[in-house]
């Protein structure tokens, strides 16, 4: 009998170290003597557990066992999540020195803080600040062929922002690339106030943000051949 064959009894009793156990399992495949011996002895070994008295199993056991298993399962799910988080934290720790960690943390906090302040700043306008109408300017038809054209322009203020809102009705329809253009007159100079197209009922609306301190004397609306006019090229349709 070779030396390795002497491990058979320890192998059956499951007392070999894992590496030895695997090595012996490999040996079993090749050693016919051990193989035969193993088959005989393990048969007896596996018969041993049946040497017990049958006992009535308590009814409550099933709930206690399965409940224990599934509850444990739920807990370990949570634990796995926590373990992942702490692993992540460990990874960060090993990547950064304490100094760089604190620098990164400060930067991150500053970044988040600024970001939040910025968002709040942006949100303040529509949410918290009421719109105030500063001026109402009635608009009248300026072309005899469409005398019913009328409208109104408002200068509204929201916070420090001023907007011009122009609303016109009963406008003659436009064709092709034609648009209506609003002009703001100041000291006989005309400045572009934006373009718009009327809907099928001849109504149109335009909002134009006024630059800080921008004022004007009069409003004129012309029909322009396209959206590229820097100075009025078409006829005046309405005005203040």
């Amino acid at each position: 009998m070779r030396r390795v064959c002497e491990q058979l009894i320890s192998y059956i009793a499951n007392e070999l170290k894992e590496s030895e156990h695997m090595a012996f399992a490999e040996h079993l495949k090749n050693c016919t003597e051990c193989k035969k011996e193993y088959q005989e002895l393990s048969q007896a070994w596996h018969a041993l557990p049946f040497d017990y008295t049958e006992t009535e199993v308590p009814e409550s056991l099933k709930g206690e066992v399965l409940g224990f298993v599934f509850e444990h399962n739920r807990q370990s799910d949570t634990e796995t999540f926590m373990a992942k988080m702490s692993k992540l934290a460990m990874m960060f720790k090993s990547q950064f020195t304490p100094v760089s960690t604190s620098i990164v943390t400060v930067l991150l906090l500053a970044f988040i803080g600024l970001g939040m302040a910025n968002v709040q700043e942006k949100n303040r306008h529509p949410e918290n600040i009421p719109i105030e109408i500063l001026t109402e300017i009635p608009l009248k038809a300026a072309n005899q062929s469409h005398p019913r054209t009328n409208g109104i322009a408002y200068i509204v203020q929201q916070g420090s922002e001023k907007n011009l809102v122009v609303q016109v009705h009963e406008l003659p329809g436009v064709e092709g690339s034609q648009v209506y253009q609003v002009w703001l007159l100041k000291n006989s100079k005309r400045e572009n106030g934006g373009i718009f197209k009327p809907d099928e009922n001849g109504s149109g609306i335009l909002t134009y943000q006024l630059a800080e301190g921008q004022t004007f004397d009069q409003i004129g609306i012309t029909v322009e051949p396209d959206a590229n006019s820097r100075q009025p090229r078409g006829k005046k349709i309405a005005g203040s």
Partner: protein
Amino acid sequence: MKENYDAELMRLVNEKNGHALEELYDRYIKLVYGFVMKFCNGNEDKTKEIIQLVFLRLWTTNSHYDPAQGSFVNWLLTITRNICIDYLRKEKRHTQHHQEEHEEIADPANAVEQRVNTNDIAMAKNKLPTAQRRLIELLYWKGYSLSEIAKLEQEPLGTVKSRLHQALKGLRKHLELEDIK
């Protein structure tokens, strides 16, 4: 056929199918309960704790039962016995009452066992010489390792091993005789 069904159940358990685990419980609880009760000398609380650990092991294990490696029952009982042994070893470490335990198993073939051991393996075991019976009791049911037993019996390890060899051979012989009858 039966092994295939068990293998399929175990595959479903590996995939965390709760119904499959319940099915395994229903099929084998009688066996596992009887086994663990014997291992724990009839202590119901310990038995419950160990059985919980056995089914938790089935639920969380990554090892798959392979029908080619033997019957499912053997596989299940090997797992169960390993957990029993771990449990008892931990307990021993806590209590340190080695001496008492030794006295308990001084006579393995006690009156109660004689009365209830009516099945084949029990009869075969009772035909073994006392030293071999005692060895199986210590090793298989009390969870002592071969070297622990050698120390306990103040004998060389080789003697203990060859006694186990003889005991298993004897058991097999007696079992075969029972089959022939």
